[in-house]
Structure formats: C-alpha cells, structure tokens
C-alpha cells in the first residue's frame, strides 16, 4: 500500500512549507474587522502558526536524550523574493534546503518567554512561564511568485529523494492568500507531484487564506464543493494531492467526513482551520 512506509531515524520523511509573503498578507483575515478584534495581519498569523507547528514537530521528535530526526524540514518564502527561510549551517548544506529537525530545534532565531494558563490539577488554572522558540517573523511585500516557489520546491524534493528513495514521500504545504502572479501554478504543481519514492508520489497540500467572510471549505472531495465562480479555487483544488490513508484517519478523528477523493486543500481558511489542517497534513503516520 502506498504511503505506509514507516518513519524512523533511518528512514525519515521531509516536510516543506511554502509561505506566501506577498503584500496582501499585510491584511487581516476576512471578517476580522467585523468581529471587533484588533486583527493581526495574515502574515503575522501565518508566522505564529508556522512557529507553533515547527515547535510541535520538534516536540513530537524530542526524547530525553535529544531530538530524533524523523523529519527533515524546509521553509520557502515567496513575495519580494523566493528564498529558503531555513539557512543550514555548513554541515547540512546539501543544496535541498531541508535540514534534520534536530538541527532546527537547536537553532531558533531567538527564544521568547510567554505566560500561559495551565491546569493546576485541582480543577483550576495557574500561570506558567514557558520558553517559546521563534524561527520566523512576518514578511509581506510585492507579488505572489508561486510558480517560482513550486519550482524551487520541486528541486528540493527531487534532490532530497535521491538519497531517501524508500521512505514516506516528502509533504509540501503551500499557504497562500492570492493568485500566482508569475504564471500557471498547476503545471508547476504537477511537476512537483511527479517526483516519488517507492512509497508514493510527493504530496502537495494547499491552504488558501481567507480574504472574505465566507466559511472555509476544508478537505473537499470534488470541485463542486468549492465556489463555482472562483476559477482560482478550482486551480488550487486541482493542484492538491488526495489525502493518503493515515491522514484520512486523522481527518476523521478531527470530525471531517472524507472519501478516497478528498484533497489536501482548504479554501477560505480562517486561523482555526489553518491550524487544524496543518495538524492533519503533517501527521504522515506513526513514528518509530
């Protein structure tokens, strides 16, 4: 069965994030003004979400003796420039931009102190100070060179698969709020998804961040579920891979109804559906 390879330190998988850093990301999420919130920009929410997600990925791999390298991780930002946002040290300059997660764990840009309310074990709560690693700050400038980003991602996963031909294939998660300004992204997405390990083709998931008040369309199984008058929604649907078995199970546990055709795609994502989807899309299978 495809997408069933065990993920271990001997056989890691790769997770690559593509983050839209175009000027429109300075805007808040759709509907945020109406709620009266002092709404943070989409770029801020995305940076916070990715920092949280990377922290959770590190914690999933952390054992008392250190971080186990179940994942190799990369981040590509696209806006004013298309660039790799994780800069490996010389030891990991493999050219893929993907670094073992232990390397990421030991090198956040900075650590911040945050105060959290935690259960006190007696039915109440208490304040706890926790250290929060920060790898990225928000950026938002210029256009949306998504095609270039997908092309760079394709180079990364192709070069990464060479020495990792048997494992769970790389997962690429593209988070954007707008249309590509540098061509037809479907062609680049198909090229990216054509690379494969013995266990299956590269998975490409897409999250479209909401600029409207419409409710999110999460994990659609057919183009009829996305807005018919939005050509771009259909393009992103076509760009997105079907969810493999383990992620369908994770989605069902989160309460979503899924089929064999369910795509790894959210249209009009709000911050909550963004976080939920990333949690599902980065759970390839059990770690060993």
């Amino acid at each position, binding site marked *: 069965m495809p997408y069933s390879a065990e993920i*271990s330190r001997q056989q890691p998988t790769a997770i690559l994030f593509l983050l839209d850093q175009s000027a429109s990301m300075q805007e808040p999420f759709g509907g945020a003004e109406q709620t009266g919130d002092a709404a943070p920009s989409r770029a801020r929410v995305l940076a916070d979400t990715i920092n949280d997600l990377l922290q959770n990925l590190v*914690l*999933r791999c952390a054992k*008392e003796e250190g971080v186990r390298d179940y994942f190799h991780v990369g981040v590509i930002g696209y806006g004013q420039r298309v660039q790799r946002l994780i800069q490996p040290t010389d030891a990991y300059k493999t050219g893929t931009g993907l670094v073992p997660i232990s390397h990421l764990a030991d090198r956040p840009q900075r650590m911040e102190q945050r105060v959290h309310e935690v*259960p006190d074990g007696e039915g109440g709560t208490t304040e*706890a100070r926790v250290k929060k*690693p920060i790898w990225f700050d928000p950026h938002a400038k210029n256009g949306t060179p998504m095609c270039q980003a997908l092309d760079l991602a394709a180079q990364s996963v192709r070069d990464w698969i060479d020495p990792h031909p048997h494992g769970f294939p790389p997962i690429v998660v593209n988070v954007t709020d707008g249309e590509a300004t540098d061509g037809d992204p479907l062609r680049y997405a198909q090229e990216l998804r054509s690379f494969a390990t013995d266990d299956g083709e590269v998975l490409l998931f897409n999250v479209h961040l909401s600029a409207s008040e419409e409710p999110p369309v999460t994990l659609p199984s057919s183009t009829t579920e996305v807005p018919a008058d939005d050509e771009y929604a259909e393009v992103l649907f076509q760009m997105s891979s079907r969810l493999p078995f383990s992620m369908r199970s994770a989605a069902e546990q989160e309460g979503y109804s899924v089929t064999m055709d369910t795509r790894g795609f959210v249209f009009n994502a709000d911050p909550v559906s963004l976080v939920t989807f990333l949690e599902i899309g980065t759970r390839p299978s*059990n770690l060993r």
Partner: protein
Amino acid sequence: MATPTAHSRTLALPKAGAEPGGYEDAAQVRAEAGPVRAAVADGATESVFAGAWAEILVRAATEGALTPARLREGLPDWQRAWAARCDAQAAAAPWYVQAKAEEGAFATLLGLEVCAGGQWRAAVVGDCVLFHLRDGALRASWPAHSPDAFGNRPALLPSRSSVDAAGMTKLCTTTGLWTPGDVFLLATDAVGAALLRGAQSPEVPFRPAAAADWSAAAFRDAVVTARAEGTLRNDDSTLLVLDLSPAFR
C-alpha cells in the same frame, strides 16, 4: 485450596533500530508471596522519560492489586515518583526536553493478580493484552479479541496530574478462575496484536500456544522473523509468561 506457585520469565526486544536505552516497555512480577502479581506497561514513544514512567507503573501494579480505587488513590504518588526521578534532568536539558517533560510521559498498563482459592483478576488501561491458556490451548484473550482492535490512540496513564486524566476513566477490569498448570501471557500492544493474529491461524508460529514455551532466544527469533514478514509491527516487544505450576509439587 490452590495456592499459586508461579514461574515467570520476561521476554523483551527493543524496536529494531533503537539506540541503547531506547526500550520503553516495562514488566515486573511478584511471585515470592501470594497473591502472585504481574504487570506490563508500554511507555508512549512520543513522550519523554516514558520508560521511567512504565517502570514506576509496573512496580506499583505488583505492589498492590490494580483496582479503580487504588488507581485513583495511588496515581498522585506514582506521578510524584516520576517527577522526583525526571524533573531535575529535564530542567538541565534543552527547551524541547523541558517542554516535553512539562507535558509528562504516557503509558499503557496491564496488571494481573492471581489469588489463592482459584480466582484471578486483571485491569488494563490501553491496549496491552492478557492471554489465558490451559492444557496448551488458548482459553481467552482480554481486552482485545482481534488483531483489528488496535488503533493509534489507546487510553494512556499520564505522569502529570495537570493532564486531564481521561485514561483513569478507561480502566477496564475482568476476573476469572485458574487452575494449577494454567499459563498467562501479558503482552504489550505489538506482540499482543501479532499473537491475536496467530491465534486465528494454527499454522502460524507466532501464536499464544507456542509463546508459552518460548525461551528468550526463541522469542527473539520469532520477533525478528515476524517483523521481517510484516506480521509484527516494529515496536518495543514485550511478553511476560506466567506459568502457574501445580501447587506444592
């Protein structure tokens, strides 16, 4: 009145590819005085100091019977024992070990008590499996009856009281009768699932009736073969064999 006289052996093999110290199951037997007690626990891979938590739990489950009341009253002490053993190490470690230790460790636990008079009782949190054999044949497995019964989210016992102890509400208990010569097998989930699969196919070597006679070497060979065939998940593999010899023999 039958008094249990037990011979036991613990068969264990870490997951393939594990580093030294990477084994996070635990097993313990108290057979020197009645009632005989045995326990196995499986520390969750995705938590830190999970092996230490599994060891604390099997010790606790062999010092006294694992009952709902004892779990409720004893768990805070067991959690304090884990914190005493792990908190200082975590404080000196990088941010991710500290954060993970704050979340606590998690483990499944199966406890068996064999009493004079012919009764046994068992309690489980999570997906460990108990097998009861008589005259070389499987009488019952518990709580799972099928290799398909294993999901990815078993009930777990948390080592932190701040974690909602939902696992406590999922303590399942059962009871039965034993006679001298009976054999009990206590297995962590991977071995339990493989034995249940083997119980459905008499020609499969990895089956409960064969397991009752395994030596450490035979167990190792069986596990390595079953992993290679894909019938045993690559996980820490633990089997505690409790052989209730005829009393006073």
